[in-house]
């Protein structure tokens, strides 16, 4: 197969970017999208040009490192599929394909298709965890979790942190990402003690980063390679309201002797 690629090239964060056009030839349908990009890069290097920088690692759809806008759609045309799991057999021979980086204020471009998603790590650092110091845990089977709660937690926990939700959202909101973590930890009994703090802190951090607000377009769910449900956002909003009403200032610890 043969494709005409229009690829966003940008030398650095402050450089102006533009599309460059490349022909991808001899592409087999069994190649993944990234293998097609590999082939293009090999030929660019052989011609003395700079290869296209793009993030990728596991190529099994789980590490969340890869991601590009393909013809304007985050991770391309297949539903619930990360870019590395998209195969060229889903394109038509001769297609023109537009390839761009995630476009979002909170994800500045580093180079070509590579963006900075460190804001996600900071949102987790703000509260996306259960405090459980190493060594002090009680026997695992003393905590009962109903199968349906465990399943709900797992559905939300499947998020791979790729950022497609933010890239797809007209507001650049990270609500699906944050909601997924809040839902995962919030349905489990272990996650209750910090439930209120967690949502307040994570949302405060999202606001501090350059993410936008959620106005229920639902594009995030459409783009999500793990098809995380919009329910997690509803749940986050519910937790948030409840936390606002019920959270009091933390009491000072008193050291008596």
């Amino acid at each position, binding site marked *: 197969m043969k494709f005409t690629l229009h690829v966003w090239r940008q*030398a650095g964060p402050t450089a102006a970017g533009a599309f460059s056009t490349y022909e991808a030839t001899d592409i*087999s349908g*069994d*190649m*993944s999208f990234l*293998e097609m990009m*590999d082939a293009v890069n*090999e030929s660019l*290097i*052989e011609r*003395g*040009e700079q*290869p296209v*920088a793009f993030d*990728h*690692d*596991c*190529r*099994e*759809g*789980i*590490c*969340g*490192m890869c991601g590009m806008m393909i013809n304007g759609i985050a991770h391309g045309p297949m539903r619930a*599929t990360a870019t590395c799991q998209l*195969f060229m057999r889903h394109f038509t021979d001769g297609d023109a394909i537009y390839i761009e980086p995630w476009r979002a204020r909170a994800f500045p471009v580093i*180079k070509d298709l590579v963006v*900075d*998603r*460190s804001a*996600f*790590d900071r949102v*987790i*650092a703000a*509260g*996306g*965890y*259960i405090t*459980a*110091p*190493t*060594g*002090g*845990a009680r*026997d*695992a089977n003393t*905590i*009962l*979790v*109903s*199968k349906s709660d465990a399943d709900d*937690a*797992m559905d939300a*926990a499947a998020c791979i*942190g790729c950022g497609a939700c933010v890239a797809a959202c007209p507001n650049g909101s990270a609500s699906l990402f944050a909601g997924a973590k809040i839902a*995962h*930890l919030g349905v*489990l009994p*272990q*996650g209750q003690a910090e439930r209120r703090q967690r949502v307040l802190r994570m949302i405060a951090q999202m606001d501090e980063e350059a993410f936008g607000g959620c106005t229920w377009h639902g594009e995030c769910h459409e783009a999500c390679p793990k098809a995380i449900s919009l329910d997690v956002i509803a749940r986050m909003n519910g937790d948030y309201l409840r936390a606002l009403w019920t959270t009091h200032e933390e009491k000072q610890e008193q050291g008596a002797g």
Partner: protein
Amino acid sequence: MSARLDARIPGGPIAEKWDRHKFEMKLVNPANKRKHTILVVGSGLAGASAAASRAALGYQGKCFCFQDSPRRAHSIAAQGGINAAKNYQNDGDSVYRLFYDTVKGGDFRSREANVYRLAQTSLNIIDQCVAQGVPFAREYGGLLANRSFGGAQVSRTFYARGQTGQQLLLGAYQALERQVGLGHLRMYPRTEMLDLVLIDGRARGIVVRDLVTGEVTSHAADVVVLATGGYGNVFYLSTNAKGSNCTAIWRAYKRGAGFANPCFTQIHPTCIPQSGEHQSKLTLMSESLRNDGRVWVPKQKGDARPPNQIPEAERDYYLERKYPSFGNLSPRDIASRAAKEVCDEGRGVGPGGRGVYLDFADAIKRLGEHTIRERYGNLFEMYERITAENPYRVPMRIYPAVHYTMGGLWVDYNLMSTIPGLHVAGEANFSDHGANRLGASALMQGLADGYFVIPYTVGDYIGSTKLERVDASHPAFTDAERAVSERTATLLAIEGKRTVDSFHRELGKVMWDYCGMARNETGLTHALEIIPQIRDEFWRNVDVPGSAAELNQALEKAGRVADFLELGELICRDALERRESCGAHFREEFETPDGEALRDDAHFSHVAVWQYRGENQTPERLEEPLEFENVHLSQRSYK
């Protein structure tokens, strides 16, 4: 035993060694912990759990990874599960049985004391992970669910759908990010370690390159922990991530750390076969599939009929036939070799004849499609996405692929390498799995090392060692930085005609052909001749575009492939010198009359440890003898 290889195994009965050792360790005064800096290179299960646990103890911590976030370490891709001797199923499991299975599964080439500790700590791991909110699979009553996995006859594997590694890593990552948020730990993503720095014979820091700006800097410390994963990508095609590499441990080796059993590389039996030359990696289909899938090939050579037209009587369920008691659940090395054998006989299926069927028709008939979907839905989907075939209708096609490296830097009982102050955790070290790793035990080992061993043993090292203060202005750092920058400049200046990938593929093919599932003296000798030639051409004719002062992925790859080109040679050398078959290391000259691995305990019941002696010098081969006081040496039999 060589003085350099004192394994420091504590005395006493095996079940008491670890407790006794913990009691005898030196403690560090809480107020002093702040004054000590610990570097952790790697943020996979081993690195993230170590970094989070130690920051929580009050040490100054820094953690490094080459991906854009610590959550992306390749541990994320583990599918099947994690073992623990909880005996929740009351099916006869115990710490002792897990210990026994692991020593036997490793074909008696691991250290008993380490393995016993691993089995002991497995209990704490599950507790720790559940406390963090890891959503393990549950029974309807709310208790944890288990399954049996890869060569185990008890159900001791805990799992989170087909994404166990992801969920365990996210648990460790969240604990790590919590420490980052509290200001106890600094995380350096998109940062690659390129050298280890020694002062007065001790590991005192690292040199790194910022992968975004290209800046080369140093970090000084009291302890360095390498948790940089496995080196399976030396074969080019493997189930590892594209970025997985040997650079950190290789540079440490060249600074004097012994490299143990490099030739012990695991080839996993259930991967999706290669579809063409363009292939950039191979995808694992979790071994858990063998719980319900049956492996077969046609009895007749060259039988090209579609699988559903081959009648039962003309199928060879070869694992069930050869290993009636373990059948489709035979350990990985055995299942892989058996697949190679039937394909070599011309009975392989699919393009190129390099594949065997993994068939779910019987399981679907017995349990219904719904149950199969519940158990393996995401794996079936992944398979269909890659191959465009529906495994609910037609059997999967699978073939072995490089998956895991049991070899790695040599460590003592404290997980310290031959360089004082350099500790090694997770897949990067050689410990625990001997010549073959059992399924669901790498996740266990990574977390045991990181949560429960390293935090103690590093404290003991700091508490019992007088460490002068050093900082990155020390000449040892500036010299190492200069060497790193010069090497980068050299790579960029070659401006040859071939891409880095083309060299990597060429090396991979040599490794696979001569040092893969079956090895022999002629092949290995040949590989030892051609690898230096490839390396030579690499340094004359590679083309690395771009500059050093920017994000330059071709340059990153070039540095890693340069190291693989050296490691590949060491692997072949080790395979040549180990004149026996054991576990994953199968030498065709050494097999039993019925084709099984023939160990030579009289001469090879030891860890082979390679010591670097300088550029173009043959490294020295040292031995750490292995003693088996609890599990009696016997021929592994899964018949």
